[in-house]
Every structure is written in structure tokens, then in C-alpha cells.
């Protein structure tokens, strides 16, 4: 920066090649203005970083109210399915009692209801508990390794069926022939009902055999490794008196017709 060297300023004449800085009016005003600009820039910078979260929470609020409403509705409907089903059962039993010949059919019906999952059951069995890790993921680590996923729950359920489970419920959602276990937006859905951890898989059946199969080294290898490395909670426990509730959903087949054997 060289001094402007005494060139007299007039309109139309420019200090073309000189860029002079001194603590004159221009220097002070630039200092003041840049201070204000810097202040605003950094405040805006910070606010902008916080903004997406705020917008998400607004949208999230709408979703969560809708979700809550729908879930309340679902609970309501499940209650009425339950009530109506009991009514049907009562009528069927009345009919069975009134006609001796119906006795056999009623017995068959009772068994089918048990198999279909329409009756709450109790008996010996095994309880598997799956839960998210209590550890916090280190920075840079994949947080997905610390939470329970739908496929892990599916693996456990499949293994329990394989080990001779006769009836299974996950967090009081009874598994029936049409049950699904999948994840939707981070939460696990069983029978289209949202479940949250911890997941308690209750399986009625031969508890020794189930505990044995689950305990084998070859079973659920990745899940066990993950439980060891990241603190994912996974344990199995034999129970003498387990209870599984009845299926609260509905069977309403639209495309099924009885075929001839």
C-alpha cells in the first residue's frame, strides 16, 4: 500500500492505482461496519444450523398426533374385535351344548381356535429379551450397531419356531399365521402394531430344547457378537409358567376360497 502522494481529489479524477488505508473516516467506518456484519454472520450461522431440527419437529408433531390418533383407534378396534369374538364363542358353545351331536365339532373348534391364536394360552416355555444397548456410540461409530433391528427379532422368532415353540408372542402381540415383523421408520411393527424396546419374546413349548438351541454357538452368531461388542441386550430364560395373550387382530380373507383336496 503506497501513499496517495498528494493527488488532489476532484470529481472525475480517481486515485486509480492507489489503495490507501488510514484511520480516517473510511477506516473507522469499515471497522464498525465489519464488526456488526461479523456479529450478524456468526449469529445467523448458528441459528441456521439449529433450524432444520426446528422444522422437523414441527412436521414431526403433526405426524405424531396423527399416529397417536390412529393408534388409539386401532386399540379401540382391537377391543371390539375381542368382544365380538367372545360373543361368537359364547353362541357357539351354547349351540354345542344344546345339541349333543355338535359336541365333537365343538371340540375340534376349540383346538382350531387354540392353533389360530384366538385363545390366550399358558404353559412352560422360554423368554428371550432383546434390548438396545445402554452404551452410547463413540463418535464416528455406526449407531445402528447399538439398537435392535427387525431382522434380529425375526431371527430369534424363527429360531424359536425351529426349536419347537408352539406359540409365540412378542411384547404381548401374539404371532399367528398372518403375522409380520418388520421395521417402519425406525420402529419395529408386529401385527401392524408399533412395539418399542425391550422386546420380550415369549415362546410356549419345550423350554430345555429352546434354551439349548438358542445357546448353541452356531445360532444367532452375529447377534451374539453384537451383544458382546456393543452391549446389545440379549438373553434367554426358561420359564415354568408363561402366558401368551390371544391374537387381537382380525382375519378377514378376501381372496381365499376353499379348494378340493
Amino acid at each position, binding site marked *: *500500500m503506497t501513499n496517495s502522494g498528494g493527488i488532489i481529489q476532484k470529481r472525475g479524477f480517481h*486515485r486509480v492505482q492507489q489503495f490507501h488505508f488510514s484511520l480516517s473516516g473510511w477506516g473507522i*467506518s469499515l471497522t464498525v461496519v*465489519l464488526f456488526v456484519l461479523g456479529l450478524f454472520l*456468526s449469529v*445467523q450461522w448458528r*441459528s441456521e444450523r439449529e433450524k432444520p431440527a426446528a422444522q422437523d419437529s414441527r412436521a414431526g408433531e403433526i405426524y405424531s398426533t396423527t399416529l397417536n390418533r390412529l393408534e388409539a383407534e386401532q386399540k379401540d378396534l382391537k377391543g371390539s374385535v375381542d368382544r365380538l369374538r367372545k360373543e361368537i364363542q359364547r353362541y357357539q358353545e351354547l349351540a354345542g351344548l344344546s345339541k349333543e351331536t355338535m359336541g365333537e365339532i365343538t371340540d375340534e373348534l376349540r383346538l382350531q381356535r387354540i392353533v389360530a391364536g384366538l385363545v390366550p394360552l399358558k404353559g412352560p416355555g422360554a423368554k428371550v429379551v432383546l434390548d438396545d444397548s445402554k452404551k452410547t456410540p463413540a463418535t464416528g461409530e455406526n449407531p445402528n450397531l447399538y439398537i435392535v433391528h427387525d431382522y434380529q427379532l425375526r431371527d430369534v422368532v424363527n429360531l424359536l419356531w425351529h426349536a419347537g415353540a408352539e406359540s409365540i408372542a412378542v411384547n404381548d402381540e401374539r404371532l399367528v399365521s398372518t403375522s409380520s415383523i418388520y421395521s417402519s421408520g425406525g420402529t419395529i411393527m408386529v401385527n401392524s402394531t408399533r412395539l418399542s424396546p425391550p422386546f420380550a419374546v415369549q415362546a410356549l413349548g419345550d423350554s430345555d430344547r429352546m434354551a439349548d438351541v438358542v445357546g448353541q454357538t452356531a445360532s444367532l452368531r452375529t447377534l451374539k457378537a453384537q451383544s458382546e461388542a456393543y452391549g446389545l441386550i440379549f438373553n434367554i430364560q426358561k420359564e415354568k409358567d408363561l402366558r401368551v395373550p390371544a391374537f387381537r387382530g382380525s382375519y378377514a380373507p378376501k381372496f381365499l376360497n376353499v379348494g378340493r383336496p
Partner: protein
Amino acid sequence: MWWLPIISLLAGALIGALSGFSIPPAFARYTAIAILAGMDSVLGGVRSEMEGKFSTSIFLSGFFVNSLLAGLLVYMGDRLGVDLYLAALVAFGVRLFNNLAVIRRRLIAKE
């Protein structure tokens, strides 16, 4: 003394970062445009100094009034349903780059 404005800019940024004050999301749009207008004014001031036309009153009034007006205009636009945000964005953006180009040319020509 040429570094004084830069120190001042950094000091302002530091105070802003440490103050814990944050702009409510509803106003972030307006302050963003105000900041853009402010940056345009600063570059305009540097340019006019290089051209020897600098005036303190024009510079200071330009900085504050432009920023305020830009924010207000965008706010008005939002209330009236016209997206003046884009108009301000384009206008200030174009001027900002123009000023930058002039400053760059002059700095290079000086070498």
C-alpha cells in the same frame, strides 16, 4: 492499520458465536437477506474507496439502511404473498459479485 477491520470482523463473529443469542427460525430469512445487503454494502464501500469516491455518510447509511430495508422488503413480500426474497437475493447477489470483480481487477492492475 489495514488489519483493524479484519480483527473487528473476527471479534464480531466471536462475540456473536459466544453470545448464545440465536435468531428465531421465523426471522432467519429476513436476517439472511439483511446480511447479504450488508456484505454488498461493505464490498461497495471498498470499491468506492478504490475508486476514490468513498464517503463515510453514504457508506454508513448505505450499510444500515440497505440491510434494514432489505429485511423489511422481504417481510412485506411474505405478508403480501410475493416472493421478494428472490428479487432481493438476485439483486444483491449480482451487485456483490460485480463489486467483487471490480475490486479484484483493481487489485491485480495495481501489481
